[in-house]
Each structure stands twice: as C-alpha cells, then as structure tokens.
C-alpha cells in the first residue's frame, strides 16, 4: 500500500517516544530522587486506571457486559470495537456520567465507581465527548477559562465580597495567561473571542481537547477525537498527544475507528465486542487476531 512509508515513519516516532517515556517512568528516575519518587519508580509502570467487571444495561440491552482492563501510566491505550460495542458507554461509566449496574472502576488506587463526574474530574481523570460538546453561547475564551479546577472565584462569597474578590481577580489574570498559551498551542487563538457555537467541526474538536487539558488532568479519555476531522488536522492532534505524553507524562485512553491511527499510535489496544472485551494486546497482534478481524476489521484492510 502506498501509505507504507508513512506507517513506518510514525511507528518509529512512537517507538522512540515510548522508550523515552518508559525510561522516565520505570528505569531511571533521572535527577528526581525523593523517597516517594523512588518508591514509585520501583513498581514497574503504575496503573492509574483499572476497570473490573463493569456491567451496564439499558432496559433490555446490555451495553457493557463484564468489561475488565487496565491502563498503564504514560501510555496511549486504544479502545476499539464495532459500532455499538459499548466503548462510549464504558467511557461514560468510567467518567461517572453513567452508573454501572455492577463492577468497579479504580483510579489511582481509589474506588471511584458511581462517583459523580465532577468528583472524578477533580481527581484528575477528564474525558472528551464523541460528539464535541462545546458550550455554544460562550466564547472560546470562556470555554477554556471554565476548565481549571478549584478556582477561588467558584465560591460565591469570594466572587462578591469586596476584599476577597481581589484574590479572585488575581487568579483570573493568571488563568488568562494559561488560557492564551493553550489557545496558541492549539492554534485557535485567532478565534478566541468567537462564540464556540460558530466553530467548524475540527475547531470544536480542538477546543474540546484544549479545554480538557486546561483541567491539568493525569489521564485523558478521548472518544473518537479524529472522527470527521480532515486528515491534515488529524496529524497535528496526534503530534500534540505524543508531546503531552512524553513531556508531561499524561496517560491517554483513546477510542478510534481509524485503524491506521490506532496501529500507529497505541502501545496497547483493547478490543470490545458486544459489550465484552474480545481481545487485548500489542497493535500488531490485534491486527492479526482472527476474532478481531471477524468481528471488527473485516478482511480488507
């Protein structure tokens, strides 16, 4: 296929990226040598997110049927499967938008099953939506300003009482700096003052990710961030993801139907089918797994 060369090229990039990341996380803690760091490092790669035997039914439909998997820190883990396999529902269960009928979700060693979305977000796990959910009548700036956690001014009294408000104003000014940086980073600063509802599909996707990043997450759940995004833009987004993974140690769980993206960017792939985990493993192995081919990929790829 004509894309072969690209594939190898990106694969290499991923390889390098993941080794360097692996280095940071497991082998040498580099110059940081506090007790805690060392203790953390001695366990090989932490597992921030683990999902155990999740089940979710809607009326008669069992959308998620006993799903278990783990996500290792500093990786991009792919979650794939046919339409209706239960991927988005799994996301919703993890992020607290839905409550499972049974099963547990553990994040950073804590059982977060059935917690509210905001509690989970505040613990450092933030999600994006399959269909971008911008806040349409707020400007792009407002959209981003909203995101940071624990803002002082979210307390009513601080926002109102004359003396206290100056601390709020100060913090707002700081946040504003970060927001503009983020906008520049995602190259949407030229539309900063536009209402988000007027953005094009791709810009919405970018806004969605930028907003999630403004919360300073440890783990990002990305639901089809590339769907409907034109190929040129898609590459840029992937670059960002690796940037953040390598430089800031973020972990990603990624749902995507574009097999090229999955194969080229994930270290680990989980395949769901009819609400269950069908297979799990390295991209290469998944690609050649007969069951997966049968259920999902089809012969022709």
């Amino acid at each position, binding site marked *: 296929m004509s894309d072969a060369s690209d594939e190898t090229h990106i694969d290499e990039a991923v390889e390098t990226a993941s080794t360097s990341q692996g280095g940071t996380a497991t082998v040498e803690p580099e110059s940081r040598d506090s007790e805690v760091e060392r203790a953390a490092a001695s366990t090989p790669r932490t597992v921030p997110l683990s999902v155990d035997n999740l089940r979710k039914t809607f009326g008669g439909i069992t959308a998620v049927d006993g799903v278990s998997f783990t996500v290792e820190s500093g990786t991009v883990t792919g979650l794939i499967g046919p339409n209706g396999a239960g991927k988005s529902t799994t996301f919703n269960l993890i992020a607290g*938008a839905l409550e499972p009928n049974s099963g547990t979700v553990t994040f950073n060693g804590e059982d977060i099953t059935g917690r509210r979305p*905001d509690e989970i977000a505040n613990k450092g796990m933030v999600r994006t939506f399959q269909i971008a959910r911008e806040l349409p009548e707020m400007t792009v700036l407002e959209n981003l300003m909203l995101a940071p956690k624990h803002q002082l*001014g979210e307390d009513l009294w601080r926002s109102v009482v004359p003396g206290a408000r100056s601390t709020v104003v100060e913090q707002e000014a700081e946040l504003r700096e970060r927001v503009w940086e983020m906008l520049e980073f995602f190259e949407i600063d030229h539309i900063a003052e536009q209402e988000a509802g007027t953005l094009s599909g791709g810009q919405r996707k970018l806004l969605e990710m930028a907003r999630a990043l403004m919360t300073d997450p440890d783990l990002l759940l990305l639901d089809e961030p590339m769907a409907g995004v034109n190929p040129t*833009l898609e590459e840029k987004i992937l670059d960002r993801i690796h940037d953040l993974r390598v430089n800031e140690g973020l972990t990603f769980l990624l749902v995507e139907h574009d097999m090229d993206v999955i194969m080229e960017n994930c270290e680990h792939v989980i395949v769901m089918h009819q609400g269950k985990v069908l297979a799990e493993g390295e991209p290469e192995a998944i690609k050649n797994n007969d069951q997966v081919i049968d259920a999902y990929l089809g012969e022709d790829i």
Partner: protein
Amino acid sequence: MSDTNSDAGADGPLGGLFDGLSRRSSDLLLVFGALFAIYALFTIFVFGQGINSVVSTLRFLTFLILVYGMLALALNLHWGYTGLFNIGVAGFMAVGVYTMAMLSGDPAGSPPGLGLPVPIGIIGGMVAAALVGLVAALPALRLKADYLAIVTLGLSEIIRLTYNSEAFNQWIQGATSTITSRVGFLPDGGAGTGAGSGIQVPSPAGPVRTLFFEGGRAGNPTPLGDAVFAVTDPIGIQQNVVVEWAYVLVLAVVLLGFYWLLSRIGNSPFGRVLKSIREDELVASSLGKHVEIFKVKVFMLGCALMGLAGILWQGSFGFVSPNDFMPVVTFYIFVAVIIGGSGSNTGSIIGSILFVGLLFEGPRRALGALGNRVDFGRAPNSFGDAVAPILSGDITPFFAYAVANRSALVFVLLGTVLIIIIQTRPDGALGGRNEPAAAVDLSTRPEKQPTTATDGGENQ
C-alpha cells in the same frame, strides 16, 4: 456577538467595578435614555392635569419599573444565567411577603403576627423564600427544562392555595402559638396567614413615611417633612406624593444593590460555571464542577431576592392577599427579562422599563387619556349594540364602547405588542448581548508575540 468590553486596562485594585468603562457608560446612557423616553411619553398622557398628576404618575411608573427590575434581575440569575426555567416566581415572592408579615405583624391584628422588628421580618422573609427554594430545588433540579417549569408553576400555585386556605391558617396559628407560648419574648397568639382575607404587612415604606410625618400619619409633619413640604407645597405637589417618591428612591438604591451583586456574580468564575450549566450540564460536571451545588445555591439566592423584591413591592401596600400572587405575575416578569434580552443584567433593567412603560402601563394610560379627552357619550351595553350602528355608518357608539371597555383592550394591546416584540427582536432590546463571565477582561492578551503558525503551517 462579541460586543465584549472594548476598553482594556481595568484589572487594577478596583477591577470588576470599572472594567469596560465605556460599556458601562453606554449602558447607563441606554437605561436613562429609555427611562426618560418613557417619562416623556407619560407626561404627555397626563399633560394638562397639573404638576401633581405628572409627578405622581411618574412616581408610580418608576416604582413599578424598580420592582420589576429587581424581579427581572433575580429571574435573570435563574434563567438567563443558569438556564433554570423557574416560572414560580410569584410563589417565592408570596413566601417572602407572608413570612415577613407573620414575623413582624401586629400581635393584636387579625390574623396576629409575632411583632418582631421589620428588618428581622425582611430577613426572615428572604430566608424563608430561600428555604422553600431549597426544598423545591432538591428534587426539581433533576428535571428537564419544561418539566421544571411546570413543577415550579405548580408549586407556586400550591403556595398560593396554601396561604389562601382557612385550614392552613388555623393550623399555622395553632402550631406557631404552641411554640411562641414557650418563648418568653414572643406573643402567645402565634401567627396566622389570614387565609382568603389576606394579611396586613408592616409596610417597609412605613419607616420612610415616619421620616416625614410623626407616627406616619398625615397632618403632623416632622421637621424634615416641614422642610421638604415647604418646597413642594407651593408647587402644588401633594405631600403624599413626596413621601412616596422618597420610598421610590430607597427602592432605587436597593435595585442598584441587586445590580451590583448580580453583575459581580456574572463577572466571576462562579457566574461562568452558571453559564456553562445553562449551556451543557454534563460538560460542566465533566470539567469538575459540582453542578447540583451550584444550582441549589443559585436557586436559593434567586429565591431570596425574589422574596425581598416581593416584600418591597407588594408589602409596601401594607396588605397582601393570595390573589396578588397569581401566575400571571410571573409571566410579566418573564416578559420583562425577555424583551430586555435574557442573560444580560442591563437588559433586565431595560426590559423592565420597556415592559412597564410600553406594555403594562402605557396602553392603559393611553386609552385612559383618550377617554378623558374625547367624549363619546354613553357607551352601549354590549358589543352587539356597539357594532350594529356601524352598519349604518355611526361609529361613535363603538368608540364609546371601546373606551368604556378599555381595561380589556389594554390586555389585547399588551398581548399584541408582546407578539410583535418577540417576532421582531427575539434576542431582546439589546440584541442578544453576551456579557462575558470573568472577573478580568479576557481579551487582554499576555505580552507575547502573536503566534503565527509555528509548526504545521496554517490550520486547515
């Protein structure tokens, strides 16, 4: 529509108060422009009836504008900012006023009150309205907009019917008296609601009155009263009108307070979360905002303000009855918010001016003025008798009938103008302005070179 603050440079120590100076001054211009236009219109209606009529008409107009303004601001917090479709405003007002009346009412009155000082009554009324808001909010906030609307409307009717009920009156009187008989400083009789007869409210305008008259009764002015009347009497302005203007000025100050408070809330991270809840709750909560807490806070705060506005409005007549809290009151407030443009505090005030001036009082006065100036003779008894002569070319009976029945036509006009406004200016008088929710001017960019695409060529 980003008519965001054009003026930068305002995050100084007084930030928030003076940011967007030019916007603020243009707002001020708008508000006073609208106000004076309405004043001029109404002066025409009563022109020729002497200065007292003019001053008194303008007072009534201003009074209505101010109380509607307060309520519109409070509702705007619920609906404009947070998207909580509360159409039970009348009910929350009722709770405020009734609680205040029961706390501060005369223990010897019928129904009896607890005789506490008026300020305590006012605070109690606000707290009670907030608590009823809380009780309503906890379950109701789970509902979708339309359902929440009907639930709040139903609740406001339940509140009204409860205050109207003799059974409740007796029950609450009994219940409160068992409590108060054990508390030394409270009168033993408890407090009642007066059921369908309504209840006396110690008017919040009373203290203003006592500034001018000893004991609040006309005829024996205080020194201040004397001084003021010395000026106004010769011009021909009734003393009562002067005193009522003084109360209107107090209301104006309260309205400014509302505006200040709500603008601060609007221009803050708190307000930003409210806006995001309005836009998409799930997004807000996925970004770590505890949506329900915010909703409950806002619901309670808004209800407290509605309670206060109710006290200052209905309470100032010295009396309320359950009939004063029919759902139509809520609709009027909604109309004020909408024609001003929901989501904007300035819009709420302008909306109140336009609503009171053009919709609520305007048609009534215009038709009244017409009726006063032209004599159409005795009005026919029925529409049939009014229309029949038209066939033979005589339209005077019809006009006479129309003027005699103008109270109906006023509402027809109100409805029609409302339809026209909503058809032609769906986003309100200010055209859907968006007041940015932040404590600082967001468009101020940090000192950096404007990015040109760094790594990937221009996007798309």
